[in-house]
């Protein structure tokens, strides 16, 4: 077994987590002097690390970042879809109602009969009252003017 102690270079490699020759590793495993040197440095480095943040600080940083980055909240998504659907229905309803109204069936025969009735009379008297007709057309009577056809 190797008798001489580890060199500074070997100590540095081991402290950094690297590998050394097998003989050096065996010596380090059995030599109290070298182990003490290694442990003293490793211990000081470990102790020099600042304590980590507590959970409250970590959560605050995380949540703030999620807000700023605009990440969506998953539970809100169904409500957004429902609201969007409701708005779409509300917006389209008047058009649908109007469309239904204009599509009501019309009795063409009845309409034509009404038109013929009006035309069979004097067009003027059918629109204006008899007083007005007597003023603007004193000689008008149904026999002279007949129909417009």
């Amino acid at each position: 077994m190797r008798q001489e102690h580890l060199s500074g270079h070997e100590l540095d490699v081991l402290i950094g987590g690297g590998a050394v020759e097998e003989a050096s590793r065996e010596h380090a495993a059995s030599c109290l002097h070298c182990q003490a040197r290694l442990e003293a440095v490793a211990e000081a480095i470990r102790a020099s690390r600042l304590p980590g943040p507590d959970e409250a600080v970590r959560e605050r940083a995380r949540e703030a970042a999620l807000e700023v980055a605009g990440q969506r909240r998953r539970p809100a998504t169904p409500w957004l879809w429902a609201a969007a659907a409701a708005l779409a229905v509300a917006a389209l309803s008047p058009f649908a109602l109007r469309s239904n109204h204009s599509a009501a069936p019309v009795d063409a025969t009845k309409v034509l009969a009404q038109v013929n009735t009006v035309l069979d009379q004097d067009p003027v008297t059918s629109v204006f009252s008899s007083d007005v007709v007597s003023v603007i057309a004193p000689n008008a009577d149904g026999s002279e003017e007949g129909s417009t056809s």
Partner: protein
Amino acid sequence: MASVARTELPVEPDEEEKLVVLARRGDRAAAASLLTAHELVVFRVCQHLLPAGEDVEAAVQETFVRALRGLARYSGKGSFAGWITTIAVNLCRDRLRRRRVLSFRPLESGDDDEADPIAVLASPGADPEREVMGREAVRAVRREFRALPRRQREVFALRFYAELDLEGIAAVLGIDVGSVKTHLHRAVRRVRERVEEARP
């Protein structure tokens, strides 16, 4: 052995990949899970690499925002931990450049004797002389860390404070593993020498 344990993956790679996909679509729960899994490393990087007087919490938050907004650019080839740690390191460099400071955040918080990390060196009934030497050794590490050149300081912080392995450090800093070893070796030598002076 004095080596530092590798950082354990907080989530499985497959699970992480799914979380990334969901977070890209704006899924808040997935994004929160990703951040939670890596926030401690990001905090530690910012704690140790930010210049004096910088708000660590604000820097961590900005790192998270940059990560979430840049998710579309994350290729998935490297680890998400490495990717978000790179963002944190770059942010710390930005802050350094912006403020043009050469001194770093004091690692001592007020009275050094009150700092918890130092106190752990002393066990109940410990030799007072040994305890004093231990505290002085920690101060020596902190002083030397602040005095390291930028690259050595980053490698040292990522190795011992963020607990990344050598490959992870290489990926974060965009250098090869051999360069990481060189920087780490030089940094450790300086720190070790100061510690051994403090603890003869």
